[in-house]
């Protein structure tokens, strides 16, 4: 299974905010057991998608050179269950960003309905320590993660390299 819990970015403003979507398909394995006859997206996977949206937002600021890891979720509220067939929109906004880490406010919605919200805290792994533990490989930002961002074109994406394009 590929550990990517967002399908596409809709909007990306470097160092500020990102919006991504996740289509919940009944073909996803976890719906078989969670739950039989009632396909609810597991809350932890919703949070993972939100964290991936936020993590890419945070990582892009430094050109994905830092290893950004999910450090804690101080607060998460799920307003309702989200079911197969729905499209989740993940909004992440940077609250704080420092060399040591970042805090992101995340929101999940279906249509105009806010279905979940969470605050997510990311740590930048200390370069030296990270080298000892994991070697040089950037296990956080694999090619696939960056590919997702690369699929965006035009004025919807305003990354560090192309900042200053149209406001959307």
């Amino acid at each position: 299974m590929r550990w990517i819990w967002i399908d596409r970015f809709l909007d990306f403003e470097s160092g500020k905010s990102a919006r991504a979507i996740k289509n919940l398909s009944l073909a996803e394995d976890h719906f078989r057991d969670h739950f039989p006859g009632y396909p609810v997206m597991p809350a932890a996977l919703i949070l993972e998608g939100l964290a991936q949206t936020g993590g890419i937002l945070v990582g892009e600021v430094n050109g994905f050179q830092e290893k950004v890891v999910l450090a804690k979720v101080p607060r998460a509220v799920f307003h309702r269950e989200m079911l197969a067939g729905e499209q989740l929109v993940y909004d992440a906004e940077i609250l704080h960003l420092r060399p040591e880490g970042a805090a992101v406010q995340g929101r999940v919605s279906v249509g105009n309905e806010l279905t979940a919200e969470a605050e997510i805290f990311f740590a930048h792994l200390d370069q030296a320590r990270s080298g000892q533990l994991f070697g040089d490989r950037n296990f956080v930002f694999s090619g696939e993660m960056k590919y997702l961002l690369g699929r965006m074109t035009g004025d919807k994406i305003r990354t560090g390299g192309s900042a200053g394009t149209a406001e959307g």
Partner: protein
Amino acid sequence: MPTQEEIYNKVSATLVEALNVDEEDIKPTSTLQGDLGAESIDFLDIVFRLEREFGIKIPRGELFPESIFQGDPDLVQDGRVTTKGLDELRSKMPFADLSHFEQNPEVGNLSDLFTVDLIARYIQGKLENGTNN
């Protein structure tokens, strides 16, 4: 300028959010790690929240200094903070009450310096000096 009590109450509310503890468990003398269960990553979270709550900037190492903890032999010897180390603490943390720690300056006791009261005193000093940048 908020009163001492207002600052304390806001600090307390901040810790409730950051550490997911009950407000009743927070006392001025509560230590962040020992009593309130803070882990290393929580310190940055606390810093972010305090900045937001009080509209101040807290530079890295100002509230939670790192130099003393990194095993510099001038500052720490045989697991104890040296006289020079204590001076360093005094200069880096004028808002800390070292009177108790000085009696037995073991490195292991350093974390006990970080109490709810210490944060409130730090914030108060920061607001009084208007060093918001």
